């Protein structure tokens, strides 16, 4: 079991002929993901890697191949339009990897996707992987292992670090989602928690947050209301100074709000198992699942 993607997912890659898009499309295919189509306007009719047909428009690709998930590698000035095109063409899930999309573009995109019933993950995220079934993103597949712990994170390498810890202690993952480090994202910690709660294949959730925004606090409020699964949480940026953007566009303590301390406090109060060190994630999950 899993959330968002599985072995039945039919994946479309927007920007498949670009350097990033082609590299990662290949990696996804190698992992075993069912990449059924690519889209690059003007490259319609070509074949990618001799096996994946390329189309000029997402609508064409969806009609021809039944693609239901789109993985988007499109440069920032065109990324918002690409996500909207995917939503308009009726894909169920759009995963936008692109970093550097203007925040107000994403406001429109999120509204547009909501109005059309398309779930957006990202932007500025590593994507989603259901180990053993389907990788739709840029994460290194080999650190993952099939299993029953869900992982949600705003970051990339820190997630790989956490997943690697889990895998090393023998704990597999049901689905791992990088929700993205931008201030405006399509899918939040809370959204993922909701889905994991409904997933029979998930026994616990690792939630990795960071400074900035209030997504972790909202997740905490949700968890506090009888969340059925144990949640193990880490918040990055406990030592980050206020008013400075820490790499991610969304990682900033603004007006005294969005500190790691606040988020850890809220999560602890909600009953989550909050670790202070990123090195303790794997051990804590092992401990919680052993209880």
């Amino acid at each position: 079991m899993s959330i968002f993607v599985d072995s039945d997912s039919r994946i479309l890659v927007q920007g498949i002929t670009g350097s990033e898009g082609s590299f990662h499309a290949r990696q996804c295919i190698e992992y075993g993901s069912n990449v059924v189509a690519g889209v690059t306007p003007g490259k319609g009719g070509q074949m990618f890697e001799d096996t994946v047909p390329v189309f000029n428009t997402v609508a064409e690709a969806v009609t021809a191949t039944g693609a239901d998930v789109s993985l988007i590698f499109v440069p920032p000035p065109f990324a918002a339009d690409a996500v909207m095109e995917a939503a308009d063409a009726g894909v169920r899930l759009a995963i936008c990897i692109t970093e550097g999309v203007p925040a107000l573009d994403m406001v429109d995109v999120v509204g547009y996707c909501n109005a059309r019933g398309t779930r957006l993950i990202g932007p500025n995220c590593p994507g989603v992987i259901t180990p053993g079934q389907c990788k739709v993103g840029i994460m290194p597949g080999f650190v993952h292992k099939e299993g029953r712990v869900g992982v949600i994170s705003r970051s990339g390498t820190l997630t790989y670090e956490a997943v690697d810890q889990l895998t090393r202690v023998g704990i597999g993952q049901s689905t791992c989602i990088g929700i993205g480090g931008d201030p405006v994202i399509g899918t939040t910690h809370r959204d993922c928690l909701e889905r994991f709660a409904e997933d029979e294949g998930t026994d616990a959730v690792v939630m990795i947050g960071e400074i900035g925004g209030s997504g972790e606090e909202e997740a905490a409020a949700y968890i506090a209301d009888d969340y059925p699964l144990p949640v193990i949480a880490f918040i990055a940026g406990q030592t980050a100074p206020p008013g400075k953007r820490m790499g991610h566009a969304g990682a900033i303590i603004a007006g005294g709000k969005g500190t790691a301390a606040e988020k850890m406090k809220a999560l602890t109060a909600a009953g989550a198992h909050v670790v202070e060190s990123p090195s303790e994630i794997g051990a804590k999950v092992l401990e919680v699942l052993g209880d």
Partner: protein
Amino acid sequence: MKLHEYQSKALLRERGVTVPDGHVAASADEARAAAEKLFAAGSARVAVKAQVHAGGRGKGGGIKLASTADEAAEFAGAMLGSQLVTPQTGTEGVPVNTVYIEGGADIANELYVALTLDRSSRCPVVIASAEGGMDIEEVAETNPDAIIREHCAPGWGLRPFQVTRLAYNLGLSGKAARGAAATILKLANAYRDLDASLAEINPLVITGDDNVIALDAKFDIDDNALYRHADLAELHDPSEEEPLELEAAEHSLSYVALDGTVGCMVNGAGLAMGTMDEISNAGGFPANFLDVGGGASVERVANAFRILMKGERVSAVLINIFGGIVRCDRVAKGVIEALGTVEVNVPVVVRLQGTNAEEGREILRQSDLEFLVAETLREAAEKAVNAASGQAEA
């Protein structure tokens, strides 16, 4: 990217918002000339305002009222070239290179109004309060009910009825309500058209004859959107920024200077923050945040090292790379090559994990350079903290 008050006001004036007459001055003489013009045009007093990006200028002595041109020149002379310390700057303060000389206004009522991004509802929001002049964070603490919000729905934006509603909810009526509503709509349009992340007028002044004037203004522009605002990008004033942060930005590196002694270089922003946290857990203090990015090419690693080592307090360096798509053996080679081009006179702890981590570690061990090699993040942090304190003692 933050804009100065005078830049923000020029943008508002272009869009039909009423702002007081004012002139930029970079010297006491220019300030005197500017003040003379304003007095000649009928101002009873003029304000001399330090143009810095930090808020709280009034409390820091960055805003002075002058009754004569000489007095304005005197205030300007004292401010220019000084470091202004406000509640929002560090103790070192920020340099004042420019002052803005501005005519006065007949203040009957002061409001606060700003557009910002509501990350939670994922759309822009107008925040307003009748307690103008005050920090909105302060109002949020002391009197949260005084804050009025109107959201800009995706696709629809801010509608006229919303600004009218806002004006009445602020307790205005008649001409003042209409004027404030119109001004807020213009502010919201500016926020949208300029890709701002913050557009603030504080205070928005209602005059004795019910005119509406923006007495202070502040724009913060979304860096990710600057590619489509070449005119705004030119307004960039880097003088208040950390020189190292500027240099890092030129190399597309994300660097933030901190007060500690353990320099760190990490691939990925989240892991970089986590590494800082782990240094702290190990009893040390990070000297910086530095995300060298996903690729961690030789050139990037070298640039990162160069910048990192300029941190004055750096007594040890921690390199933490999680190899995903990028293989650790390649990263190891890159680090060695990069270190060949940069003088590093402090201990360097390297922790490689992920793809080909063991191979990478082996390459480091066998190189001519001296590395402390660690396997886990905790181990790496501890070694780095120890090395830094040893270095500090030495």
